[in-house]
């Protein structure tokens, strides 16, 4: 039986929703229509492409995990704990969103580069970050973290705080409340944040190429590979991005159905 027992959605909601879908669908569809499908499989099998795809997937996943580990506590602090300077921190978190990605890459270079605040001391220890896969992960995290934090903070604010109180009365310490009550209740919002962050990382180009460079097998993610290919062959570059799309859609569809299947009801 249909769950729409609260009545039909009105046209003034269906129409814009349809438009939204169209706005997203039409460009994708016409892109797909132009793609040279014949060479798609062949391209997918090329070792550099597989390297780039694999690099993209694991660095984006690592960045997602880093966002989760670093960002979830931050989102929680912003949503649930009063501390001086909270609105300052909240604003700070938004800033990297506004930074054009290439400038973000420059900023990362100035911080982690050989003369950077963090980079210089690290270099003494024999560690250099830029132009390594680690740099890719850092660039992705820097770019994706704000998305994650802001959307999760929104979700946390939208969930009731009453249950935190109940858990406290039952003897759960602040950390246990966080783990066992707040986070599970905000699970759909957190899942959304992870999807956002992961997808943003996958598509990230500017910060990565500037901070990590464009080294095949080491820092050349799919968007960078697409860029490189774009120098020679537009259509091939488009085909390559479709490969990436396909893979990420499959991964996402699998993940989402599992997450939402569990988290939402």
């Amino acid at each position, binding site marked *: 039986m249909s769950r729409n027992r609260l009545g039909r959605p009105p046209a003034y909601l269906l129409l814009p929703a349809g438009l939204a879908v169209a706005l997203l669908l039409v460009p994708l569809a016409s892109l797909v229509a132009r793609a040279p499908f014949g060479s798609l499989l062949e391209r997918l099998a090329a070792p550099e492409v597989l390297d780039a795809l694999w690099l993209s997937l694991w660095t984006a996943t690592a960045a997602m995990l880093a966002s989760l580990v670093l960002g979830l506590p931050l989102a929680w602090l912003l949503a649930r704990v009063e501390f001086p300077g909270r609105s300052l921190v909240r604003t700070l978190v938004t800033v990297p969103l506004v930074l054009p990605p290439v400038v973000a890459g420059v900023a990362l270079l100035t911080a982690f580069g050989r003369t950077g605040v963090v980079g210089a001391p690290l270099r003494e220890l024999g560690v250099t970050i830029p132009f390594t896969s680690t740099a890719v992960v850092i660039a992705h995290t820097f770019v994706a973290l704000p998305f994650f934090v802001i959307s999760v903070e929104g979700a946390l604010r939208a969930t009731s705080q009453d249950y935190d*109180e109940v858990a*406290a*009365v039952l*003897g759960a*310490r602040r950390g246990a409340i966080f783990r066992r009550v707040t986070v599970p209740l905000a*699970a759909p919002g957190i899942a959304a944040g992870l999807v956002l962050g992961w997808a943003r990382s996958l598509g990230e180009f500017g910060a990565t190429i500037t901070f990590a460079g464009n080294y095949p097998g080491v820092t050349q993610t799919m968007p960078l590979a697409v860029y490189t290919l774009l120098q020679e062959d537009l259509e091939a570059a488009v085909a390559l991005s479709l490969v990436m799309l396909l893979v990420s859609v499959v991964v996402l569809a699998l993940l989402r159905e599992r997450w939402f299947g569990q988290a939402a009801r």
Partner: protein
Amino acid sequence: MSLLEARVRVRRSPQSLEVDLDADPGDVIAVIGPNGAGKSTLLRALAGLEPMHQGTVRYDGRAWDGPGAARPLTPQERGIGMVFQQHLLFPHLTALGNVAFGPRSRGARRRESEERARRWLTRLGVEDLADRRPRELSGGQAQRVAIARALATDPALLLLDEPLAALDVGVAMALRLELARHLADFGGIGVLVTHDALDTLTVANRVVVLDQGRVAQVGTPDEVAQRPQTEHVARLMGLNVLRGQGSGTAVALDSGGTLVTTTPFEGRVNACFSPAAVTLTLAEPTGSARNRWPGTVTSVVPHGAAVRVHLAGPAPLIADVTPGAAAELGLAPGRSVWAAVKATEVGVYGIAAPPAQAPLRSRYV
């Protein structure tokens, strides 16, 4: 020195809460009072959920809040159990998970916590529902799980906010006894908010009556039942209480008219009489009953062997009459009658607290 010494002060506009509460081991305190009197706020302040601007809470010699404490102890540091007025079961956990939450949080292992939880669910007759989520439970079932959750941590201070409100009559009675037994055994303190006279009379050994954020009366259940200080308690206990100004054996009632008693008293008084002492007639009574009022029947319901009649009039009254008399008088809502009570049936005692402002609800009645 009592086990619990609480001077609860919560600032809130328009009405603040100022309640002093002391309790010894094994005490079960019923907190009663009209809606909005501050009962839930009191429990929340004791739990550390409501910040106090002043006052102290000490338990077993330790300062929980107030001057003796560097900072108010957090709820988890207080080791309490609480049933909330809105049961607030965790929506993402099963009934079992909800009850096991407390033991888990207090350091028990998973298996142990779940066994413990299962035992409590069984004690509350809801072990079949262990694997259900709260949204798959009925109101009363959820309430029972909430009670199990509060009890499962063996708290030294148990705060119960209308725990039996959603329960059916059989379960409520059984739970009252169970609670009384549990509270008597454990040597801690129970604080029970209720709107039910039975709870007060069967579970508690002390009663605190709140009105508008202040204590209106304290005493044993019997004392409170017999000498209610507020109209609310009188109604709860099924008594008639009229207020007035005593002068000799006459009481000038606030609701108008004079009541004659046999106990002389000067000053503000409560005049109290049982519904059984009220006789109803159709015509204005003559004879020895000098206290009489006209009134309109608002409801007629069986009450034990008698029939209980509610009257609206200058002051609302309750009368218990025999079924025979009720039939004879044709008592039905809307009927105009005269109520009379003999002077000898009226108990008179002083009003302890200063007369409170009219409570909210009186505007409604």
